[in-house]
């Protein structure tokens, strides 16, 4: 049903490369996915998979001195119905979108809030900039935002500084800041990684509630498969800068197609426990493990990036990078999957 709707964001062939002393590092290559209105797409991957570079490229937040070489396109539908390519947008128009139609929350709320501005001023700044409110009106709106994210005693909190808040409260402030201009797309980059599980549950419930109330879409970047299982509609699995598999959440967990996705799910202790026969072993057996580690982006393997760690690898896998093959609403980048389709 959601497939009939036009996506809010459609990313096609996104690539980001950084020139370094040791040569061009292709951090992200050939990444395509879409985010449907009111839905959540999760970008999943381990360190070095390129999930954060993807989100920073979309937001235009890569440092200028990184001299990133960006390719591909990312079509975003604005509030007024215009379609813009985020990757080729002039800086002034990008600024008008950022924090307004597209907002972002980060992993570390301590370093992403300004330590010398009060909470109220930081939220008000965005409202004054994008909505043209005056100081008093912006502060009043900031207070409503703090109430929206369930911060107790919002009026007092307005005058407080980030260091006076706990990690969970800071992430709520980040969310208030992101929600201030009612974004159509919220990019959440590992928003709960620094938090305890009980606080993580609170923050995820809050984001879910705001999404239901405002109809915004969420691009959720995470390494936590438990969080993905409960909060994503679509899942995009990344490995070494490329999409290796994408599917709706239930089919992905029920029948992962790519050997990397299969391995990732199998090496979770929670999954090992559900395995048949696991309950009667007095001491746990070995966990499934993916051998080795991600190859250096400076010396990528000639063919499939996962081939050196893959149990199903054969000579053909070393010849060329497999294409992303599609079937029935899902995709996988593996020659074995192509054959079985």
């Amino acid at each position, binding site marked *: 049903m959601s497939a009939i709707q036009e996506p809010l964001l459609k990313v096609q062939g996104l690539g980001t490369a950084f020139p370094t002393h040791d040569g061009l590092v292709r951090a992200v290559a050939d990444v395509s996915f879409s985010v449907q209105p009111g839905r959540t797409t999760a970008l999943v991957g*381990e*360190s070095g998979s390129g999930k954060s570079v993807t989100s920073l490229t979309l937001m235009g937040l890569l440092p200028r001195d990184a001299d990133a070489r960006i390719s591909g396109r990312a079509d975003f539908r604005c509030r007024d119905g215009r379609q813009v390519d985020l990757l080729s947008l002039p800086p002034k128009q990008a600024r008008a979108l950022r924090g307004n139609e597209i907002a972002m929350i980060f992993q570390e709320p301590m370093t992403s809030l300004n330590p010398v501005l009060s909470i109220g001023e930081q939220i008000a700044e965005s409202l004054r900039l994008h909505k043209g409110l005056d100081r008093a009106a912006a502060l009043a709106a900031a207070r409503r935002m703090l109430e929206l994210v369930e911060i107790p005693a919002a009026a007092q909190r307005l005058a407080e500084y980030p260091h006076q808040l*706990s990690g*969970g*409260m800071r992430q709520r402030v980040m969310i208030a800041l992101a929600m201030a201009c009612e974004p159509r797309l919220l990019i959440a980059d590992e928003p709960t990684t620094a938090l*305890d*599980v*009980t*606080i*993580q*549950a*609170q923050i995820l*419930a809050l984001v879910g509630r705001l999404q239901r109330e405002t109809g915004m879409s969420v691009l959720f970047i995470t*390494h*936590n*498969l*438990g*969080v*993905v*299982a*409960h909060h994503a509609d679509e899942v995009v699995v990344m490995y070494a800068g490329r999409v290796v598999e994408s599917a709706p*959440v*239930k089919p992905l*967990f*029920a029948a992962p197609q790519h050997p990397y996705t299969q*391995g*990732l*799910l199998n*090496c*979770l*202790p*929670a*999954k*090992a*426990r559900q395995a048949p026969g696991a309950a009667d072993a007095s001491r*746990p057996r*070995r*966990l*499934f*493990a*993916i*051998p080795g*580690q991600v190859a250096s982006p400076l010396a990528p393997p000639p063919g499939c990036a996962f081939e050196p760690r893959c149990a199903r690898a054969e000579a053909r896998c070393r010849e060329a990078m497999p294409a992303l093959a599609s079937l029935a609403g899902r995709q996988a980048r593996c020659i074995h999957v192509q054959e079985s389709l």
Partner: protein
Amino acid sequence: MVHEQEQQQPLIEVRHLKRYFGDLKKQPVRAVDDVSFAIRPGETLGLVGESGSGKSTLGRSVLRLIEPTAGQVLYRGEDIAQAGARRMRELRRKLQIIFQDPYASLNPKMRIADILGEALDTHGLAKGREARAARIAELLSLVGLRPEHGTRYPHEFSGGQRQRIGVARALAVEPEFIVADEPLSALDVSIQSQVVNLLMELRERFKLTMLFISHDLDVVEYLCDRVVVLYLGRVMEVAETRALYEQPLHPYTRALLAASPQPDPEAPHRPVPLQGDIPSPINPPSGCVFRTRCPHAEALCAVSVPPLTEVRPGRFSACWRQELFA
């Protein structure tokens, strides 16, 4: 409290351990407050709780890397808190630690062989150049690295490999007891399972006893025999792992388990188990420290501290409203 059911003498016994920081006469931070437990030889005891619960302070106090404010830590019946400097050095050979951050816990200016060699030299092990080099090579292969890795520096390794080096350093002195302080939390999922397997292998091979500190309840369930649940410096619950996960008896344990997201989209969606944040350990709540977030708290809970009591054989819980869950 723990001893009756045990035939064996525990390898490590912690009795009424306290560690306060700051001015004890004013309002100290009560990081660890009156904690007692025992670890049997060969057992892996899990220590779980949120940040600020005192897990790491407790782990370090057990090894006397932090001096306890009060209480005893017995190693084979000997109080290590009372040991003199010379005796302590001997004891350190038996008691080792693996740290959380493999980037911060290896000296960046030392080659791996020297990092491992230093541990040997300190305790007068593997004397002589050849014996020393052979032992270093053995240690590296034990943790899945190659002998030639010894000539490299820490920055040349990935996080998972560094954690293997941290494990090799702890094993260099042939310890009996290891405190593993969140050894997996800096690692990616696919690397985590490699290190979990390594720890399980070595534990079996060298009959190691472990205190495994973690906030990851899935790993603890997988790796540990028994679990101690800590909140704001106090023990909430102690139980055999399987019993604890099947039926948690303390409301805090129940909340922790409910908050841990399962990697299964078909699993029923659970409501948010706890509101608010962990209170400050400078001014902990009166009575039961968990009562301010507990959905079952009543007047009595604010009055006095619930004692850790044996609610069932081998199962201890500190809750005034235990009858609700037992």
